């Protein structure tokens, strides 16, 4: 099982691939809405991709109030 740091790293890599931005532009505390210029529906696309990668089911509400990669990683880590 990954630790939180590894989970965060994997999320950053997947987000960079999914939204086609250089990985080095993203860091754990980034506000992903602002950094990636995406809306809440587009974050659900990312959630689907993360589910497939981590093999967990993440209800839509897990993203409620989350806007940075680190907190997202904590939510996913809790379900691994």
């Amino acid at each position, binding site marked *: 099982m990954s630790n939180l740091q590894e989970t965060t790293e994997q999320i950053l890599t997947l987000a960079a691939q999914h939204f086609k931005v250089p990985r080095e532009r993203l860091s754990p505390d980034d*506000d992903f*809405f602002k950094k990636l210029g995406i*809306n*809440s*529906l587009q974050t*659900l*696309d990312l*959630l*689907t991709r993360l589910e497939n990668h981590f093999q967990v089911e993440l*209800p*839509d*509400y897990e993203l*409620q*109030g989350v*806007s*940075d990669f680190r907190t997202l990683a904590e939510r996913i880590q809790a379900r691994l």
Partner: protein
Amino acid sequence: MLDLSRYSCLGAALRDALERWPKEICLIEADRDRENCRLTYRQFKEAALPLARWLQDSEFHPGGRAAITMTNQSKWLISAYAIFYCGGVLVPIDYKLTPAEQLQLLAHSKAEVLIVEYHLWKAIAQSSEFGTLRTKTVLVTEAPANAEVYGAHRWEDSKGKGEAEFFARERHDPACIVYSSGTGGRPKGCVLTHENYLEQCMALTSLYPFWPGVRYLSILPTNHAIDFMVGFIGPFTCGATVVHLRSLRPEYIREAFTKYKITYMSLVPMVLKNLERGLRQRFSELPAGKRRVLNGLIRINRTMTRGRPRVGLSRALLRDVHNAFGGELRALFTGGAFTEPATLQFFYDLGIPVANGYGCTEAGTAITLNDFKPFRADTVGKPLPGMELKIIGPDAEGIGEVAVRSKTVMSHYLDDPEMTAEVLVDGWLMTGDLGRIDPAGHLQLFGRKKNMIVTEEGKNIYPEDIENVFEGIAVKEFCVFAANYLWPRRTMTGEQLVIVVHPEQDHTIDEELRAEIGARNRRLLNYKRISGIVPWERDFPRTAALKIKRNVLAEEIRQTIDSSAVIPL
């Protein structure tokens, strides 16, 4: 459908609906590709009445207030019916609010009962403000076995023994208290009566009828005014079926269309835009020849439906597109925020009419709606039956504040006669929106007179509601405004909030202050965030009670600087 003019309250209308169509399916709840439950009207009644009895056994009396905080699911509707059956007043609360905001609205509404999903309840119970909760009875749904429920009762076990007693209400009694804003400042609890809802339902279904066999796809939470009406009261009083989908992900929405052969669906402009994006992408991936054929068929459909929608013809012409939507879709409903005319036109040309409307919580659900006689992409439609519209103080182009008078307009703001008097003037509701009625009777909107924004997700954000997050920043004074209020633009897109900052003497807006404001900003939900800082050097005008005179300050700013002064965050 039931003749709603004969009814005095929602509870009585719903009770008769459950008796009239016992074998029809009223509710299907789907979670992704799984079906959680499927209930007939009889089974719905059998689920709701023991809960009503349990509430009555718990001293919940007619006129008592009960709040619901849940995502989009069947227990919302079952609970709401149980509350109405008891003669209670329903307080729908947006589950996306923070625990502190939810607690604030529970306190303001004086709700005696709260019905809430487990994960939301857990967040409330673990919040630092939990001690402020005065709601005496809490029912929690879907709590895992052996989970800590923080003093709540389990919804699934809350079944009273014996028959529940039905309590009818009068038409002018409150049915719901719906909060249009005020989570950070002065709560705006719109008191909507049974008459408001019954009249609204009659007006909407006169244009867009439901009947047994119609399947409405619900992806908006039922606390949303549109879904409460079009995804609950409307279909139930017509014997139709509501399909709840507990996910907003495009892949499951697409699947639900085909799996359940959906007839109608409501969606906010952001989701509509997403559907458009997906379809355009799929069209662009077609081989060149197929794309040419498709474009030709779309052109033919556009010509043939210029005067009115012709669903059968469109389905025959554009079979693959319609099959992707289940083949039985008649219309989509949208509202709550600005929808781009090009998006509306895109769907209409495919033979999928999108009924674009305009409304506000204070006026029930919808005030105007497109009736497709003929389709217009550039307006929000004509007034619904029973709605009177007028434009206050029109300028040379006929644009002024939109005022509405109808039986759907709220009774008042809860416990706030002063604010009520500001918006209800001589029987007319002053909407604060700027519009014009064109020669064909269609309403066109041109921005706002009021200091607020509406996001693309359909969320109304009032500056006063987010100011508390900036309390204590190292400045002399500050105030949040809608940028469109400071510098009016005749548009309802791209609306943003800005913070006006008056620094301490001999200080400037330096990097440290910007970082602090940025950090505070991130504590807000993403759609509530400010986008920039307006530097301001003069003292804010204030009342004798030291409240900021916002309109005076806005005028001073408008006269002194323009929007290029905004420092982006």
